[in-house]
């Protein structure tokens, strides 16, 4: 696989991220109630983030020759929905850190955090409604339909993961995991931005099904790399608690591989540990799981699968966007599969 052009990826992410955030804050009300709601809806967006999702949407539209402004509102909506889901995910996962700071519910309490997440989801509808001024009613409605589809897929994926954890399901197969990732991660992170960028760029005259494969492989590689960073990343750059996925009992590819390769005694200890509430899992438990993952080659296995999926994403890119004329945006999208597995 071609090495990622880090400068190109980072400069495009910065440029489109800045454009998205500048427009995003226009959609956040500054009226009352500020203390319990409107001062908080901008909290996560203000913390930064790579703006990967809106950038992919804008770059895809621009790769078709469409001006940035045509995709900007859809990109803003994607980023707002992403932030809304982060707030709710943090509550569901009992996460303590997000982008290097305490999570919303740690700072403000669960009820207020849920309400802020709800409001962010609603605020994400306004830019989609505003699309009609620039894209016309037909295309705008199509984007709304697509957004509803994406939100449904994401919720289904999240339900799978939460259900597995609640019921302590330990016979999750790799295919089950990938289907969960397809829904929970890929639809919002990569499939939806690709589909929206293509839809806007081609003004509706495009087969969106082809974006699903590219988005799936890119998003799955992205998720596995994210899970790896949770084990061994740079805590400052990563912005979340290291080892948090194990503490939360998340069914990652490494954990699934470990459950498959573990001895009976190890599997029993894992089952017992995963059946406990989050607070009952000690630092020693987490360290033991990571040590066993190392011993059984689970971390290396997951890294190799991520590389393979990135290669598959690159393959799908050629079929999906290969016909487009060369451009900075096309090169950015082409560089993403390698970038997602190299980031730290």
């Amino acid at each position: 696989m071609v090495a990622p052009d880090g400068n190109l990826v980072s400069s495009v992410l910065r440029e489109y991220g800045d454009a998205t955030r500048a427009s995003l804050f226009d959609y956040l009300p500054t009226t009352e109630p500020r203390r319990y709601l409107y001062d908080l809806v901008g909290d996560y967006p203000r913390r930064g983030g790579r703006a990967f999702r809106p950038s992919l949407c804008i770059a895809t539209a621009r790769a078709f020759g469409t001006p940035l402004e045509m995709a900007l509102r859809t990109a803003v909506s994607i980023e707002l929905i992403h932030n809304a889901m982060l707030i709710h995910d943090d509550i569901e996962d009992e996460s303590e850190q997000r982008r290097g700071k305490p999570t919303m519910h740690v700072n403000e309490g669960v009820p207020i955090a849920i309400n802020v997440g709800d409001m962010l989801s609603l605020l994400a509808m306004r830019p989609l409604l505003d699309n009609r001024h620039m894209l016309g009613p037909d295309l705008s409605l199509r984007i709304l339909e697509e957004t509803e589809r994406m939100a449904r897929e994401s919720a289904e994926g999240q339900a799978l993961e939460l259900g597995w954890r609640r019921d302590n399901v330990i016979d999750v197969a790799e295919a089950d995991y990938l289907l969960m990732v397809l829904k929970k991660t890929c639809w919002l992170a990569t499939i939806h931005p690709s589909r929206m960028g293509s839809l806007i760029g081609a003004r509706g005259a495009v087969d969106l099904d082809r974006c699903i494969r590219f988005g799936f492989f890119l998003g799955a590689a992205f998720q596995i790399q994210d899970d790896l960073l949770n084990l061994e990343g740079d805590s400052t750059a990563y912005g979340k608690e290291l080892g948090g996925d194990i503490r939360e009992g998340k069914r990652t590819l490494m954990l699934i591989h470990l459950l498959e390769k573990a001895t009976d005694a190890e599997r029993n200890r894992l089952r017992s540990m995963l059946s406990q509430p989050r607070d009952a899992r000690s630092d020693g438990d987490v360290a033991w799981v990571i040590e066993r993952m190392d011993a059984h080659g689970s971390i290396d296995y997951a890294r190799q699968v991520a590389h393979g999926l990135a290669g598959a994403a690159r393959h799908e890119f050629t079929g999906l966007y290969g016909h487009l004329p060369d451009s900075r945006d096309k090169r950015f999208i082409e560089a993403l599969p390698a970038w997602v597995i190299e980031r730290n």
Partner: protein
Amino acid sequence: MSASRPRIRRVPLERTGPIRNPVVSAARPALGFGLPFDPREGLRTAERLAAVSNAAVQGAVECGVKTAYTVIDEYMRRGREAASRHREHPNWRGDMNDNRYSYSNPNTAWGPMGPFIAPWMQAMQAWMCAMSAFVPGAVPQNPWGQCATSPAVSVKVFSRYPTEISAYVDPGADAMHLTADALSTDRADVRPFGGAVITSECGHVRVSVTVPDDQPAGRYRAAIKDAAGCRRGELTVEISKLETPPSGRTV
């Protein structure tokens, strides 16, 4: 989360970057969680990795990608099956797009409730059209919202001969700087001409066409493009020549 629950205190990390070498990675079982580092563990782990390589590591790329393709193929197959059940709907747009109802079609916008809603919607449409008569300058309302898809276009033509012009501009393109390609026909022996000037403002596009006196009769077409060269509409000019040309220009 309970507010009274004690906050978990993490042990400071021994390093701040990822370990990419699997042998070195495996040699540090603590991974920042406070267990002692044993330099000999790397060798032992490498031996273990070699021992399990056939089962766990070798072919991981191929197995992972194969499983992923199986998952996405099955997902797409199920999506296609679900979508095929809605093919009879007029706005069915593809296998996985899940467009169940056409919102732009008044007959299907309400799905199975359409037959019950239709009389009420027709009454509302009649009421809206009637009310627009009381508003000076108001355009009769279309409750389905299809009338505002394209900006208004006005055309000015300078020609010695009868000339018919039609112009279509995409919705939203009126906010852009537009230009027109040279007007050409399918005939190779007829030279194109480029006398079209386009000015646009929000909601209105003005097209001005000057036809050269010696331009042969025929149907000429040109793409309307934005500053980035993206197609935003089409201009069609049809020139008819009379047996005896008129003496003056028509506007």
